[in-house]
């Protein structure tokens, strides 16, 4: 790997600011103790907002708090990415208001004039001095010469080069290793070439499987995949006015396999409506906004019949062919109006679509509405009428949620389009979004109106970045810490600010390219967040180094592969599936809920919906078992092929023994073995090591030790229970490892008289259970 370094930086300002606020009360200029320039924005964020306004003032001075009607209303990080700028403006305006020559911003919290919130701090206290310093800065603004903030943040962080990024990306997106041609192109053409290659990679069907996985982790609609669970959600009762009387059209078919298949394909077509819409949009480079605004749904030849829609297919028997279709009488709003989505996020008479609104905020507006209630509320103080409409303890969330909930008004608890006969609830805020109230004429298609508003919001583009980042990195986007007492509070603020800047930039590119999701994928892959793999602190004292680690706490790869990803990687590097059985009847251990899928941290989209992202002892044993079984299966199988066709051992033969009978190294064999180890390290771990690298030597030693042990075991007398046989036993190759078919006698492999195959099995086992293989 090539190390890329950004120029030296570091949040030295952070450390110094903490010191200046907590130890010294001396503010004597725009530089900190280290002489580093501190900008007004930085000063406000780290010395005024974080420790004082956020902690001491915002519990009342927020849009729903006790001081919501004053002229000093602060925003929380959850309210949007520009909250700091808005808060600085509020501070500025308040500082300009004066009483007898003194600023309100100083008088109010010190009770120099009446303040319903009482005394918040003392005159000449540290907070007071920070306010004074901020006011002085407003009079005499300080701008620092700043380099690229992102580059500075990642100073000292080692990033993957283009070639290593390519490998990581092809494995992540297409479940395969890069081709030699791709590696050559990226080495010659650098990052521009990577862009082109990624565009090609994103035409691979596996990429669309990955997309489905990433979005199903959010939508969880695969809960209805299989059986007839999705069909059962359709209202088929024609006499009762059901929308889909043809839901079970296949019941007319004769009992048997054809009918069973038709049921399965119909069901899965309905279950996959949302995910296939995503695939359709991305595959055809359509704007991602259609995920919400599409006036159509997706059907395959079988689900089209269940839904009673007209659609034409190039192959009416292909259950994997999805096309767009409109359901008559239904105002579609992208994925939101599919029956599986509406049932996965249901409502009740009293919930009134608030759950659906909350999920819309989470998936498409990058906003955790519930986090607005992170501050302590006293719900038992609620005594007035209709609290969700009138009481600040409730309206902090409900003012945001309820108008959007109202836009779902025409969709009932079963996911049917049923405009309420009595209109929407008069004791709730009317349907709308943000400051906009829905015009009455949009009533029959309220949700269509709502989503048009949503996709205009800058957070919509950001939400796609959030989802793809989480899918590709396994990490949730950083949220600014909300507890100033946390030791890593300032580091967390800096980290979140930097990440937000990077993500906003990606979101802007996304918007500028007409919401092409592939742009988001490419930009995330090229970002330092995806490529960071190590860090070295240079020239920092202990305090500085620790402060730096706080900032970098969430930076870096190190993601444990999901079961689906590991499954694909095993196939990519060994050429074989890790499965029970082979051929059509094979069951992949990592994809089957009855085997290891959920034990290895996967989800079933039903009652297990959170992935386990850190290995435990059970998962460690899954990995061990995989390494044992795959070494047993892949190593002997590879040796049944000619060297040119092998994918693990192209540079050695089983006859190559590292030492002769007298224990002297056989140089040619030892060299070939080392070369093959180098090759395996690059193939399995993506590392390109020199022949004399300590790791190559360690693996060679493992090979040698196992082989030597084998020689001893093979020489023991026949009646010695510790004697090793020459037969590979359960690792014999009698069948085609891909198809399960019996091999002709001459292609079989059962003997290992030199013990080299077992030594290579040990090496394969070691490498398959390594951190570099199991993690991204």
């Amino acid at each position, binding site marked *: 790997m090539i190390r890329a370094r950004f120029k030296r930086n570091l949040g030295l300002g952070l450390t110094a600011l903490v010191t200046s606020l907590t130890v010294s009360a001396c503010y004597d200029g725009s530089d900190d103790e280290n002489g580093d320039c501190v900008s007004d924005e930085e000063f406000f964020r780290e010395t005024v907002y974080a420790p004082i306004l956020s902690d001491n003032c915002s519990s009342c001075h927020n849009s729903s708090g006790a001081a919501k009607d004053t002229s000093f209303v602060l925003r929380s990080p959850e309210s949007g990415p520009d909250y700091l700028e808005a808060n600085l403006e509020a501070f500025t305006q308040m500082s300009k208001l004066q009483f007898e020559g003194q600023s309100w911003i100083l008088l109010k919290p010190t009770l120099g004039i009446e303040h319903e919130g009482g005394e918040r701090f003392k005159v000449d206290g540290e907070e007071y001095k920070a306010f004074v310093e901020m006011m002085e800065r407003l009079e005499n603004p300080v701008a620092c010469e700043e380099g690229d903030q992102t580059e500075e943040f990642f100073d000292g962080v080692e990033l993957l080069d283009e070639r290593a990024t390519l490998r990581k990306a092809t494995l992540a997106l297409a479940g395969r290793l890069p081709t030699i041609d791709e590696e050559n192109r990226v080495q010659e053409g650098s990052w521009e070439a990577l862009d082109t290659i990624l565009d090609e990679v994103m035409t691979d069907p596996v990429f669309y499987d990955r997309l489905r996985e990433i979005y199903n982790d959010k939508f969880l609609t695969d809960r209805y995949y299989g059986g007839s669970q999705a069909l059962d959600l359709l209202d088929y009762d024609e006499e009762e006015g059901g929308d889909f009387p043809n839901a079970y059209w296949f019941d007319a078919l004769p009992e048997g396999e054809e009918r069973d298949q038709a049921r399965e394909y119909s069901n899965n077509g309905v279950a996959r409506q949302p995910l296939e819409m995503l695939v359709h949009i991305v595959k055809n480079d359509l704007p991602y906004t259609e995920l919400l605004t599409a006036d159509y749904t997706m059907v395959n030849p079988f689900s089209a019949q269940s839904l009673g829609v007209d659609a034409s297919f190039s192959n009416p028997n292909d259950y994997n062919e999805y096309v767009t279709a409109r359901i008559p009488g239904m105002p579609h709003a992208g994925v939101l109006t599919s029956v599986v989505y509406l049932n996965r996020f249901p409502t*009740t*008479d*009293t919930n009134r679509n608030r759950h659906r609104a909350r999920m819309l905020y989470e998936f498409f507006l990058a906003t955790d509405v*519930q986090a607005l209630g*992170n*501050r*302590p509320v*006293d*719900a*038992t103080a609620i005594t007035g009428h209709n609290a969700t409409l009138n009481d600040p303890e*409730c309206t902090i*969330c409900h003012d945001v949620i309820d108008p959007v909930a109202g836009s779902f008004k025409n969709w009932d608890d079963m996911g049917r389009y049923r405009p309420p006969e009595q209109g929407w609830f008069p004791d709730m805020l009317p349907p709308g979004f943000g400051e906009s109230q829905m015009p009455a004429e949009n009533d029959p298609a309220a949700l269509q109106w709502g989503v048009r508003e949503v996709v205009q919001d800058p957070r919509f583009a950001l939400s796609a970045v959030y989802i793809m980042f989480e899918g590709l990195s396994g990490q949730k986007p950083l949220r600014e*810490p*909300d*507890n100033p007492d*946390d030791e890593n509070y300032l580091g967390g603020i800096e980290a979140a600010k930097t990440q937000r800047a990077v993500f906003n930039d990606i979101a802007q590119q996304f918007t500028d390219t007409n919401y092409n999701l592939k742009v988001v994928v490419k930009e995330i892959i090229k970002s330092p967040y995806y490529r960071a*793999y*190590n*860090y070295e602190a240079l020239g920092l004292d*202990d305090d500085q180094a*620790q402060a730096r*680690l706080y900032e970098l706490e969430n*930076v*870096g790869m*190190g*993601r*444990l592969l999901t079961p689906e990803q590991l499954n694909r990687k095993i196939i990519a590097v060994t050429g074989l599936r890790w499965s029970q059985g082979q051929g059509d009847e094979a069951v992949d251990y990592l994809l089957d*809920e009855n*085997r*290891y899928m*959920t*034990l290895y*941290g996967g989800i079933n989209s039903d009652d*297990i919906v959170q992935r386990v992202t*850190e*290995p*435990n*002892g*059970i*998962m*460690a*044993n899954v990995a*061990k*078992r995989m390494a*044992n*079984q795959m*070494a047993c299966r892949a190593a002997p199988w590879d040796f049944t092929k000619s060297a040119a066709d092998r994918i693990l051992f192209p540079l050695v033969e089983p006859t190559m023994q590292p030492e002769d009978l007298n224990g002297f190294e056989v140089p040619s064999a030892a060299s070939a073995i080392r070369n093959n180890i180098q090759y395996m390290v690059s193939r399995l771990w993506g590392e390109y090591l020199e022949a004399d690298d300590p790791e190559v030597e*360690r693996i060679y030693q*493992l090979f040698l030790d196992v082989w030597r*042990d*084998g020689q001893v*075991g093979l020489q023991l007398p026949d009646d010695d229970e510790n004697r090793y046989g020459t037969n590979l036993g*359960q*690792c014999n190759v009698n069948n085609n490892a891909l198809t399960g078919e019996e091999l002709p006698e001459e292609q079989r492999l059962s003997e290992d008289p030199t013990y080299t195959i*077992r030594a290579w*099995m*040990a090496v394969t*086992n070691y490498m398959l*259970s390594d*951190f570099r293989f199991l993690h991204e």
Partner: protein
Amino acid sequence: MDRRDFLKLASCAGMSVVAPAAFGGRDLSFGRRGIAAEAYEGTFFILFNAGGGWDPTSFCDPKGANGENDPDPMNHYLKSMIGEAGNHRFPMEFPNPNDPEGGYGTGIIPAFFEEHYQDLLVINGVDMQTNGHDQGTRHTWSGRLSDGFPTMGAYLAGTYNSTLPMSFLAFGGYTYTAGVAPQSRASNIGALEELAFPALSNSDDPNSSYLSSKSLELIEEAQWHRDQALISGQGLPKIEHSMTTLFESRSGSNELKRLKEFLPEDRSGGVRGQVEVALAAYRAGISVAANISTGGFDTHGDHDARQIPSLENLLDGMSYARNLGQELGIGDKVVLIAGSDFGRTPGYNDGNGKDHWSISSMMMMGAGIEGNRVIGATDEGHRAYGINTDLSVDQSEDVRLKILPAHIHSAIRKRYALGADNELAAMFPLTNEEELPIFG
């Protein structure tokens, strides 16, 4: 933050931090020092999460209706239907106002109190400070309203031995670990048995190893050196943590085979089944804490018909855990703690349901817990009274102190998790200024 980083920082800051031997595993030994070889025999914690927000007034903090014609009843049962066992009060029955002949429940709720009142500690009037599900669950189980703190099970597992294969076993509930102990699942017990012997093709046949035992030893030896090389060269905390977690999980994974010995052949379903696996994991010495999860409590509509069966399911599971533990001779080692997202509103909404209410309760029984006690109280409208530091109820208007989850966590940490001597306590400091002597 990584523990090693923390210790480094603490050292720089002149803080005194005790790192008991049980915390090993961050010293690059990864099981070499027998960290996980010792079966865990300390206190076992079974944590019951009532997902969705339970209604304390339907069991441990009963209110009842003021009469059959009460226009705004707290509950549909009458005050006269509240029973007592020792110091505990609970509804005896749950009538259906629309069906005089009908009712809800099968008697499990009163039977639970009558059977266990002498062991049971109830804490009423716990102020969750939120009506949000995520926030409430997090507050109950991490002791902090905002995020970032580990769930109680992970905290306890991290305290005693995070390297055990099921150190923190979770069937659901709030499972954020903050990296102090990995979360394990036991969703497929059958597969666990073969996973206990990963090097054997047949877990019942010790001669079915894929490689010789010597080869496996050599692989492990090489792996250990490799792990050390990787981690010592890593400078990003997140990746270092990922490596450490993998290496630690490997070091304890051999102990999984002990589980097979203790799993009952015929396992129950539902909450009882979760309890059986949890107790088997503890008896195998491979688990410190287990999250038991049960749902059905978010009863915005048709409250009684849905809340009462959910409560019965939960209390039946708790009762089963208590009795099975005693039957197995480990009753004096097992602690049961139950909590939920929050409580439910006083009275019923238009859909005969109850919405979210920020006052809740918690229940405990088992090792080291003095039963037959109720701490804290609420008024007739299920508003929390205050509490004094001697645990007496403060009914004054100017309440100074209310019971928060932080007080309960603080007491649990002090009683069961080494208190301030635990390095995790310094990493995840609770914000309560007062201590409540919940355990005396």
